[in-house]
């Protein structure tokens, strides 16, 4: 078996040395499409007889376009140079290209074509001892990395624990504050609705760093009054950021001091407030000495807060600002970073498809499949191709074979690729280390072979429905390392850039996005944590029953009931001790109602009224005369007589009599 493999390798090398014109080309030659005359086309390899038809354009009526004539060669070369020289192309750097254990990449580096990554060859040509030393250094590096990872993990959990504790403390302080201020707030709450008077706009700097800078600038400009004021403001807002103060334009320095009474910064704050108030309100001069003195008091407070902020920024910053991750894992030898960069330079929008393939948007022109996909995805992809899109595949699947009858055979190949016939006078130096070859068993219309590995098709295209499928025998041909060799980059870009302006990459990441918040949490592995936090919040709310934040009554704007107005009026009467006035007004009104009820035709006097009322209610007439007279006299002496407790009694009796007589209506 080993012998057969060895002989096959030797045969491949022999074939490479015989067939490939690139073997003699120096590594730093310019691209072949620039140097070779257009007429030269003898390097293309004839396909096997049985495959001859497949290599030729199947639609004889329609002249096939040459995709290699539409892309500017200089542009691809410069883009390739930029992509390979960038820091992301780590495989191209000798120090970073730890590829001696990667036979595929090392085989590529040994191809006798133009190599643009000398580091790759250098890394592959290291001796075993060096490799071992490299391995040992890598091993030590790995151990160091593991140690650092452990420390990072520990720091992460410590910070997370600190964050949780801070949140708990903050909640506690809020809730304790709410408990103390709840009665007052409840009483004041009706007033909240009455704060209709618009407060004047008040804008002040609240950023500690800017205030600190402002203080220093003011001091440098000898404006010490502004400097000390800015120092004081920086201290206040530093304490606010530390959670020790609630800052409001309506709060005085005394309010702040009372809030800091049990804090270690109380003494410093008191001194600063006194000094600054003497300047602001007392006319005391602000000098450099005063500024220095206050600076020394404020500095520890502000620096403490800023240190915490810087620590937070240091700890969380790399996660938030990791720009280098954009190329990141695609920068290796097997990645697709270079291809992506080259296509983008050709104004092709390349994006990874995170959304599932349930519905492919109309704006997508081409889809390249990288890696294995489930069968339902292949169904959608083939539907996309049948609908007019371009499907680029680098790996076979059962669905693909059934639909297009194109097989991927396990025939390895290493060496030069040749352009198929029909693309003359284009001449390219193509090379590949292939693990598969294409097997186009049945011929179909609109079939086209672009490149051959030996006699087998390596890159081919077939129509499918209204669209087409572009086959690459091996996904490694489009990898970063492969594109750095010869004219592979130009070949790939030429084929992929004329499919349309939008190319999507479908891989293992496709369908991995979350469709909802819950799905996102579940996929991030945070479902249990969030559930625990939610449960904790529910338990906390159930136990404490306290709202998060200060409770305020809702603003009630409602029309008051008539009863409320009567009660308010009565309350005013009570406060004013206006019983006599109430008897005079309400008593006279009741007497008039009695007159209307008992003698509707003609007005009658009090005596007659008492007589008729006595007949109606059964109360002795003299008692009623006295009652009516008292009510009537109240109208005359309401301004002069002193209020008496009997006024209300009289009024009450009169009202009772009126009700017994039939009411006031």
């Amino acid at each position: 078996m080993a012998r057969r493999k060895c002989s096959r390798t030797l045969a491949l090398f022999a074939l490479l040395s015989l067939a490939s014109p690139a073997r003699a080309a120096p590594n730093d030659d310019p691209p072949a499409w620039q140097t070779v005359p257009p007429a030269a086309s003898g390097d293309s390899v004839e396909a096997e007889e049985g495959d001859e038809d497949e290599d030729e354009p199947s639609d004889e009526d329609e002249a096939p376009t040459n995709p290699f004539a539409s892309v500017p060669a200089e542009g691809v070369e410069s883009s390739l140079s930029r992509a390979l020289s960038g820091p992301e192309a780590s495989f191209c750097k000798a120090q970073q290209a730890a590829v001696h254990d990667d036979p595929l990449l090392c085989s590529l580096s040994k191809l006798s074509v133009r190599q643009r990554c000398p580091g790759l060859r250098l890394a592959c040509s290291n001796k075993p001892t060096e490799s071992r030393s490299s391995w040992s250094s890598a091993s030590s590096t790995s151990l160091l990395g593991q140690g650092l990872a452990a420390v990072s993990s520990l720091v992460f959990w410590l910070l997370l624990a600190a964050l949780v504790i801070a949140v708990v403390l903050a909640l506690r302080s809020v809730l304790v504050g709410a408990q103390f201020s709840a009665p007052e707030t409840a009483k004041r709450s009706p007033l909240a609705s009455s704060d209709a008077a618009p407060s004047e706009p008040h804008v002040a700097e609240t950023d500690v760093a800017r205030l600190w800078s402002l203080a220093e600038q003011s001091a440098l400009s000898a404006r010490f009054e502004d400097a000390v004021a800015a120092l004081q403001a920086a201290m206040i807002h530093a304490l606010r950021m530390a959670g020790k103060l609630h800052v409001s334009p309506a709060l005085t320095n005394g309010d702040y001091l009372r809030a800091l009474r049990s804090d270690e910064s109380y003494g410093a704050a008191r001194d600063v407030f006194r000094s600054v108030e003497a300047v602001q309100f007392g006319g005391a001069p602000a000098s450099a000495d005063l500024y220095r003195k206050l600076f020394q008091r404020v500095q520890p407070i502000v620096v403490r807060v800023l240190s915490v902020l810087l620590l937070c920024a240091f700890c969380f910053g790399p996660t938030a600002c990791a720009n280098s991750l954009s190329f990141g894992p695609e920068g290796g030898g097997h990645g697709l970073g270079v291809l992506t960069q080259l296509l983008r330079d050709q104004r092709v929008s390349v994006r990874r498809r995170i959304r599932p393939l349930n519905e492919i948007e109309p704006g997508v022109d081409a889809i390249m499949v990288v890696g294995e996909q489930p069968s339902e995805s292949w169904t959608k992809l083939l539907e996309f191709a049948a609908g007019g899109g371009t499907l680029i595949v680098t790996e076979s699947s059962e669905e693909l074979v059934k639909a297009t009858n194109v097989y991927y055979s396990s025939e390895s190949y290493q060496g030069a690729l040749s352009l198929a016939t029909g693309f003359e006078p284009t001449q390219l130096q193509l090379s590949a280390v292939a693990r598969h070859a294409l097997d186009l068993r049945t011929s179909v219309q609109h079939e086209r072979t672009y490149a051959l590995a030996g006699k087998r098709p390596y890159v081919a295209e077939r129509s499918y429905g209204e669209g087409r499928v572009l086959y690459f025998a091996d996904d490694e041909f489009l990898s970063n390392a492969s594109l750095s060799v010869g004219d592979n980059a130009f070949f790939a870009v030429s084929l992929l850039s004329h499919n349309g302006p939008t190319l999507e990459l479908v891989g293992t990441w496709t369908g991995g996005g979350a469709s909802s918040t819950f799905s996102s949490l579940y996929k991030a592995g945070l479902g249990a944590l969030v559930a625990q936090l939610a449960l904790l919040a529910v338990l906390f709310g159930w136990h404490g029953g306290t709202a998060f934040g200060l409770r305020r009554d809702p603003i009630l704007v409602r029309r008051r009931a008539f009863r409320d107005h009567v009660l308010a009026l009565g309350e005013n009467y009570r406060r004013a001790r206006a019983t006599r006035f109430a008897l005079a007004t309400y008593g006279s009104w009741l007497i008039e109602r009695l007159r209307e009820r008992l003698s509707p035709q003609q007005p009658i006097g009090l005596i007659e009224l008492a007589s008729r009322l006595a007949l109606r209610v059964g109360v002795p007439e003299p008692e009623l005369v006295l009652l009516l007279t008292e009510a009537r006299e109240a109208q005359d002496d309401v301004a002069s007589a002193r209020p008496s407790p009997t006024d209300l009694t009289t009024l009450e009796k009169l009202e009772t009599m009126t009700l017994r007589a039939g009411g006031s209506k």
Partner: protein
Amino acid sequence: MNLEQLSSELRRIETEVSRVLVGQESLVEHVLVGLVARGHVLIEGVPGLGKTLLVRALARVLGLSFRRIQFTPDLMPSDITGSTLYSQKLGEFSFVPGPVFTELLLADEVNRAPAKTQSALLEAMQERSVTTDGITRPLSEPFLVLATQNPIESQGTYPLPEAQLDRFLLKLEVGHPSQAAEAQILLNYVAGFDPGELSHLSQVSSQASVVEMQRALGNIRIAREIIDYVTDIVRRTRTHPSVSLGASPRASIGLLNVARAHALWEGRDFVIPDDVKSYAHAVLRHRLQLQPDAELEGITADHCVDAVLRDAVVPKTSA
């Protein structure tokens, strides 16, 4: 005496009075500030909190003359101001000064007397003089009226009219002492303390010193921003929707004077916003007349002052 000496003397007075009036340091401070600001103080509190003891101790420590009037429904104005009587011995009419001719006057349960009698104090409090039979007689300096009233009883009482209330510079609400302070009161009682006997208190000040303190207010600096702050607060009481009648310009003047007096108390020669804010309730609460609706809602004048202070922007704030 300079400001620091005056301030320390005020502190000594407070300390001395607090020897017998335990747990009411804030009340003593407010009364002293009112005295320095040449104002009168209305103290509202339930019986038994030491209001009379405060005034007596204050008179003793300050070295001022002290008179007390127990207001009753049958009290006559002349019982306060004094009256002209015919002296058979001299054969002429002579004026017998009433208890208002003193330096510290305690008007105990001032709301027990009818409005006519209460009004007898109007001229004395505002003009610091008494006019009887066409003759105006000035009162002594200093002259401080400390009136008390009970907040819970309403039967048989005559609420002070607004004009009378406006004459009081401060209205103080006396609360119950803390548990520790009450325990100290009991310890003093067990040790033989007699509220009627205050001879053990030292006189740490004098009439001249009090007058000097009152005159020193003129040296307290007031920044323009402070004046704007005071007027802003008072103006907001007039536009507050729960208030039917806001504070008068007399309240502004009173608040300013009290702020200066508090600055003197603190030993400062300038007023800061805290001086104004800390005395806003005492100066304004009895000058606000609430809407009936607000009263029905249980809103008090203190709530309105709180709302006003929440809205008023403190001058030169860092927020």
